[in-house]
């Protein structure tokens, strides 16, 4: 796996701190509130904070209206699963937000959204590699190569040269 560690596209997350430049702070959580972000939220005055709790980005219209309503001088803090973080980030960018304003909290490791490079299917919550693609049934090696656009790691067929050569499943980190 040492070659995988060199892949630069894998995001590195840092615990968000207060964005000192911003005049308004929007917190977006998936499900329960992240304790560390909650502390940041509680430390802000009521007039300078907003909270959006979503089970998933399916409830995107609520989020979109918040993103469009807030002033240009806003910061966004997102906590949840990794794929959720990037979905929220991409929604914000569609509304004209820039990465400098968007702070993604470290997600739980060990489960990934995977993008099949053969049939373009997306699979959620993948915990082991290789994984059988739900779209084309190919066994996919889950790489550390990350697509910000899809919020997903790239999966490529692992046994192209020898169909009998199927490595053992390994848990993802």
């Amino acid at each position, binding site marked *: 796996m040492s070659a995988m560690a060199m892949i630069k596209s894998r995001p590195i997350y840092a615990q968000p701190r207060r964005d000192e*430049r911003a*005049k308004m702070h929007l917190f977006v959580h998936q499900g329960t509130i992240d304790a560390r972000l909650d502390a940041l939220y509680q430390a802000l005055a009521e007039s300078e904070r907003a909270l959006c709790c979503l089970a998933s980005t399916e409830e995107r219209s609520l989020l979109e209206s918040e993103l*469009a309503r807030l002033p*240009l001088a*806003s910061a966004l803090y997102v906590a949840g699963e990794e794929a959720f973080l990037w979905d929220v980030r991409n929604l914000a*960018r569609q509304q*004209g937000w*820039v990465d*400098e304003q968007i702070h993604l909290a470290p997600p739980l490791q060990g489960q990934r959204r995977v993008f099949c490079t053969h049939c373009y299917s997306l699979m959620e919550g993948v915990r082991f590699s290789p994984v059988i693609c739900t779209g084309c049934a190919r066994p996919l090696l889950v790489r550390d190569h990350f697509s910000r656009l899809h919020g997903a790691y790239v999966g490529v067929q692992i046994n192209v040269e020898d169909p009998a050569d199927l490595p053992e499943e390994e848990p993802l980190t």
Partner: protein
Amino acid sequence: MSHSMFEVRVAAIEEVAPMIREFCFEPVQGSLPSFSPGSHILVEMPARPRPYRNAYSLLSDPRDARHYRIAVRLQERSRGGSRFMHEQVQCGDNLRISAPANLFAPYWPAKKHLLIAGGVGITPFLSFLPEFVRRQQNFELHYLFRSQQTGAYRDSLRQGLGQALHLYDSSQGQRCDLHALLARQSPGTHVYICGPQSLIDTVTFLAQELGWPRSCVHFETFTAAQPGQAFSVELARSGQTLAVEPEESLLEALEGAGVDLPNLCRGGVCGQCVTRVLEGAVEHRDAFLSAEEKSRQDCIMPCVSRAQGHHLKLDL
């Protein structure tokens, strides 16, 4: 030069404001390289004892490859470049120019483009506008000028832009309330500033005060090198020592000695000519290095910056 220069012919010269002349260049042979909105070229002026090379924004429509047009404001405290363009260059002359480079492209994903031009700083925006119209972008142009000196292209802008154009003629006491203008912008707005340093400083300061993300603020300033005191420069690798005259930039002195450094803007913006300093204190005059990098005193932008004292030793 790190990039190839080629010849063009001056096809037309027009006075577009009391102190601004527009030059239209046509190819001597073949066609002109295409360019993107916000691009500039370097124009070489065959002056003595040394040629001037200044950067000018292309103001023509990027889709029109038949001509390049630039506008040159006569600088009262010019080292000679703008004066040369105004007084020496005639229709039919040939000049050498560089291929276009772009350090000021629009950020296309923006929801809205807020353009703020001061005087001859209108020029890069003139190449933005046709493309904005074609791509149906949401934009406003706020144009600040003094009609007794600058204020070129107002009539054609009025015809083309209508409501999107806002004019402020300080010769008539018209002021732009920049704070109010920035304060009323909604998310997804990007501001672009081109004009005097004081305008850029004011807008960037206000944007910071208002909490705008830095990456939503774009500006371009081409200030040709300002004179300073003479100093000597020692080149550590070749062992040469050169004298830099008061009216000459360090980059020009190096070029005069046959030392070619990469450069795109010659105005302290693009960062191409950065050079390691081994000895001596630098008077930093560029807009490229961060405050922290400047304080380290270990590199210099030779296009605009000079020695604080009488001596510099460079890693060249």
